[in-house]
Every structure is written in structure tokens, then in C-alpha cells.
């Protein structure tokens, strides 16, 4: 028993140094040198390309609904300090009422919503929307900005990222890079 205990203590210290310090710190050093941009959060001039943001008003393409909750327990969409999903069940009346309200709000803006536009994401920080969701917003954005719809539509098409290697995951449109390009569109 005492022998086991002494050995356990030595082993625990060895693993603490190897797996808890050397491993993550070597990884951090390597990442900071070789992948500086990614390792620090893929941050550009207006935010991280991997972390979704709240976009308000019809002048911008909207991201997915976000269910993140702030420190006080009240809704705080796209709170990147508090990732999380709604966790509402598939027969939840609360989910149904959220979906109905979101769909009504979008229709009021002249947008026919897709399913992804009325359901919240798994992280609450989804940086992407589906190509269909982007196309659905083209008319409303073009109207608000007094731009020709065809030009906005072309912008969306040029911002579709296909599935990686053609088959991994789903094709997406990154909302931040689309809106940055939109701001540059004359």
C-alpha cells in the first residue's frame, strides 16, 4: 500500500510534467510559430472568421439564431465567453414558439426563411449560414442598400465555400467575410 502510494505520487508528478506542461506548452510554442493566425483565433480587422457575430438590421446578412446566455442568465446572442446550444427538445413548446417568432420576424423583412435561419446552432457562435440562407436574404439586403439584386446575388455565389475536399462537411457561406465584401460593394 505504502509502496503503491509512493509510486503513484512519483508517476503522477511525471505525468503532470509530461502531459500537463511539456505537451501543451510544446504544442503552444509550435502553434504560435507555425500557425500564428489560427492559434490566436483567426482574427481579422472586424473579428474572428470562426466566431459568429450579431448583425442587426436589414443592411447586413444575418447569421443563425444564437442561444448563448450571459452571466446573469439572460439571453446574450453570440456571447463568445459563453458558448452553448438551446438544448430544447424536439417536442418542446418553447422551441416551437421561438421558431414561429423568428420566422415571422424574417417574413416581415421580406425574407422567406430556411430551416437554418430559424433554428439556433450548437455552439451559439456558428460563423456560417447555408448558401440557401444567404440567397434567401439577397432581396432584402439589396433593397435596404439600394443595390441591384443581381450584384448581391453574385457576391453570395462568390462567397460559397464548398465542402472540404469536395465531401467533408457541408458547403457554407461565412457571414463576416460576406458582409465585409458587401460593405465594399458599390
Amino acid at each position, binding site marked *: 500500500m505504502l509502496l503503491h502510494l509512493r509510486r503513484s505520487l512519483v508517476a503522477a508528478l511525471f505525468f503532470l510534467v*509530461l502531459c500537463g*506542461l511539456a505537451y501543451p506548452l510544446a504544442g*503552444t510554442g509550435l502553434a504560435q510559430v507555425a500557425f500564428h493566425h489560427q492559434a490566436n483565433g483567426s482574427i481579422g480587422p472586424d473579428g474572428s472568421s470562426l*466566431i459568429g457575430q450579431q448583425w442587426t438590421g436589414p443592411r447586413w446578412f444575418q447569421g443563425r439564431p444564437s442561444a448563448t446566455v450571459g452571466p446573469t442568465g439572460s439571453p446574450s446572442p453570440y456571447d463568445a465567453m459563453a*458558448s452553448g*446550444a438551446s438544448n430544447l427538445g424536439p*417536442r418542446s413548446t418553447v422551441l*416551437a414558439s421561438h421558431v414561429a417568432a423568428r420566422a*415571422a420576424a424574417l417574413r416581415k423583412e421580406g425574407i422567406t426563411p430556411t430551416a437554418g435561419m430559424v433554428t439556433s446552432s450548437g455552439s451559439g457562435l456558428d460563423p*456560417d449560414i447555408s448558401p440557401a440562407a444567404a440567397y434567401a436574404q439577397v432581396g432584402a439586403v439589396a433593397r435596404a442598400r439600394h443595390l441591384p439584386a443581381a450584384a448581391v446575388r453574385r457576391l453570395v455565389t462568390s462567397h460559397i465555400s464548398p465542402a472540404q475536399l469536395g465531401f467533408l462537411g457541408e458547403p457554407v457561406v461565412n457571414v463576416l467575410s460576406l458582409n465585409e465584401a458587401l460593405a465594399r460593394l458599390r
Partner: protein
Amino acid sequence: MGFAWTLVALAAVLALAWRFLGSYLAAVYQGRLTFLGWVERPVYRLLGVEPDAEQSWQRYAGALIVFSGLSLLLTYLLIRVQGSLPVNPQHLGAVPPALSWNTAVSFVTNTNWQNYAGESTMSYLSQMAALTVQQFVSAAVGIAVAVALVRGFARRGSATIGNFWVDLVRGVLYVLVPIAFLAGIVFVAQGAVQTLAGPAVVHNHLTGFTQTIARGPVGFMEAIKELGTNGGGFFNANGAHPFENPTGVTNLLSVILILCIPVALTYAFGKMVGSVRQGAALLAAMGVIFCAWLAFTTVAESQPNPAVAATHAVAQHHGNLEGKETRFGPQSSSLYNVASTQTSTGSVDASADSFTPMGGFGMLTGMMLGEVSPGGVGSGLYTILLFAIITVFIGGLMIGRTPEYLGKKIQSREVKLAALAVLVMPIVVVAFTAVAVSVHAGRAGPLNSGPHGFTEILYAFTSQANNNGSAFAGLSGNSAFYNVAGGIAMLLGRFAIIVPTLALAGALAAKQVVPAGLGTFRTDKPLFVGLLIGVILIVGGLTFFPAAALGPLVEQFSHGRLF
């Protein structure tokens, strides 16, 4: 169509892992590889261990229990005092006692159930030195137990089953650290963060909004989180968070990492008992169950979400998107969550709570089968070997003959130990769920009402007793009741299975081999594979059907009703 190619790529990589990682694992645990001897030897000297001196099953189990107990204590202490330790840029305070208990048990038992939100609870030092350490060590402990049991079959008339310290050190050094490090590089290259610089504040010039973004040493933790079938992520959203699982590539890599060691261990097992076909038979049983559950869950998630459908507000052509990330969609999310619940991983890349009733049923029942398809690192192999013993016992009963497995006579003691180990998990799940729904503190947990609320409780104890860690995360688990009860369930689900398994290893190692005769039930043939699958399904089905009927089945068949 794209998803079919994802599955082809996964199958191809796993086939290679089975053959080559499997043979590497056998060489590591048979002591045939020594290229890291220069690290090993000083460690053994420090430990005072003679690497060739083997242990009886009692000493092996004793060392394992004492080491795990001390790991539990150290993990608990580290997160209790994190506020006074460095590498804590967010100045997070001590983790409260009940939550620390639950978390320490959770990581030491390879469960990684998380009653906390990582980015707002754990300091960077806690994530690295407390949690990541256990993600390596608990995985190595699991593999060690499996290897000890395999030695029990492989040896004849032996009083020993290996040396726990050597198995532990070799698993971490030769297997887990190198593979995790390589995978960590891919995670970071794809966009996972890896920094100690604290949260970033970004300002969007277009909208005028400012956003504070949690960061940390994530990418390399992600690698061992999956490789060790741990599942505990840096962030609350786990594998759905873009900094943990940024792309389709990392999503598939995660699934590969989760499955590769459990799959490869069946080859290593075959190698060590002298017949690769025996390992292939176990893999076949695992593969049939895995594919059936994957197909079932993927089809379920490709159906509309009933609550969304009830609003008649949108068309749901692509299935259930609530709680899912756009870049993954229902199919890749199903693959990830099934891989994670058919092993003891429990990581999620989509909200399990918001899966369709049958999608949730697929994940829940995957765990209820005991996680053998292919199961956690080590635990998958030793659990399916327990089922194999019960299978040959039932086969022997049918023809009135003492059963054998791999040349070892399976007698009363072996059957009792295997049955005991197999029954621990169901008893814990059913008993703890029954207590939870009977007391106020238990009923206060669920977020959702109706049958889904019951499923949240059932899922929690199924996950913890199986050392899985996956959650219907609507449950408010950070209460005294759930922290304490969950901790006990995880401890029983780990060590009340490991001890009888090691006793079994000792009993088997001591036996002589009986030559196979005409009446021997061949355990490398399809008939055995079919019977093994049958036993696994019947044990799980008979135990859990009533509970599953009250939860996901009621929910599925409540047509037109919301709760």
C-alpha cells in the same frame, strides 16, 4: 453523396489503423519496442519499478486503484486552488467543492462528464495540468486493463498478468503522446486555437459591436480528448465550438481519433492470443452494431424536427438543424455523436438534447449496450471480452458442455466474474435514475418537460455509469445532488467493472490450455459473431426497454403533441 465519401474515407483509415496501429500496440504491450527506452528507464528508476518484475492480479489492481485514487485527489486539489495558481489570465476563482468532486471523478474515470462551462470555470492551468493530464492517464489505465485481460487468455499457468506501472508508462509514451501531438498540429492548422494569452477583444468596424472571445490551449487538448475517448472539451459547446472543431477535416479527424485505438486493439488482441481471426470476429460484432446504429441515427436526424414542423413556418429539407452547426449538418453531426456514444468518448459536435426522439434514442441506446462497438480505449475490448465469455457460456448451456474461449475452460468463477462486471452498469443506471426521479433535487434538474425531461435524467446516469460523458445538456447538473450522485455513478461504472475484470484476468492466466476438439465452439466464425451480437442486444434490451419506453419512445410516438 458527399457523406458516403466521408464514410469511405473513415473505413479506409480505420482499416489501416486496425492492421498497423494494432500490430504496433501489440508490440508496445509485449515489450518488443524499446526505442523510447531512454525515457522509460529513468522513469522506472524513479518509480522504483523493475520493468521485468510482473504482478499478480491483486497487486496490479491495487496499484491501479491507489494510482487512480491519488490522481483523483490531485485533480480535485488543483482545481480547488486554481485561483492562487498562475496561467489564469481570466482570474477565475476556485471551483466549488461539489463540482470539483464531480469533475475530478469524471476525468479520472475517463468519463469527462462536465457540469461546468469550461471557458468560464477552468483556468488554463487547470485545463492543462489537471484535466489534460487525466485525459492521457485515464486512457492509458483503460488500455492497461484490456491488455492485462488479454494476457490472461494468452498465458498458461501464470501467476502474473503484467506490470501496471510499465503498461501505464508505455501506453502514454509510445501510443498516446505521439499520436495526439501529430493530431494536435492538424487541429491548430485547421483553426483550433492554442494560446495562453487570454480572451481576445475584437471590434467590428462595420457594426460598431465589440466582442470578447474566449481562447486558450485548445487544439492539443482536443487531440487527446478524442484519441483517449475522453470527450471533455475546453469549451461548454464542446466539439460544436468552432475553436475546438473548426472544419469538416477536423470533424472527420475527431471521429478517426475516437475509433482508431478501440478498433486497433482487436487486432492487437488477436496478435497476442495467437490468432488474428479471433480479433477480427470481435471487430465484426462491433462493426455490425456500429453501422446499424449509425444508419439509424443518421436517418433519424435527416427527418424534420417535430417542434419546428408544428409551426408550419419553414420547410425542413435537410433534416433537424436545431443545435447543429451549418458546417456539419445532420449527417456529419450524427456520425460524430454516434462515434462518441458507441465509445466512451461523449464529445458532441451538435446538441444531443435537440436531436430528434429517435436520434436521441440512437445515442442513448448506444451507451446502454455497454459501449462495446467499439467502446472506449481498452474498456471497449475488455467489455466485449466479458460478453464473449457470457456468449460461450450460453453456447455451452445449449449443448451441455463446459465452454471454452481461446483454449481456456470457462468455469463457474469466470462466468460469475464476467456476469458481475456486465451487471454493474445497468444496476447503477436504473437505480440512480429511479432515485433521481423520486427526489425533488433530481426532478429539479431537467430543462425540458414531458418525456424528454425524463430522458435527460436517464441519459445523464447512463452516460456517467458508462464513463461516457455525453449529455442531454439541458439538465442542470451543477447541483449538490447531481454532482455527488453522478460522481458515485462514475466511480462504480469504472472501478466496479475493472476489479472483477482483473480478477478474471488472474483466474484465466492461471489456467492451462485445453486443446480444441470436435465439440469446441469456434469463436472465429460468423455463428459466434451472431450469437455475441445477440447476447449484447438482449442484455441491453431486456434491461433498458422499460426505461427507454418511458422516454424517447413515448416522445417519438406522441404524434402532434408538444410538451
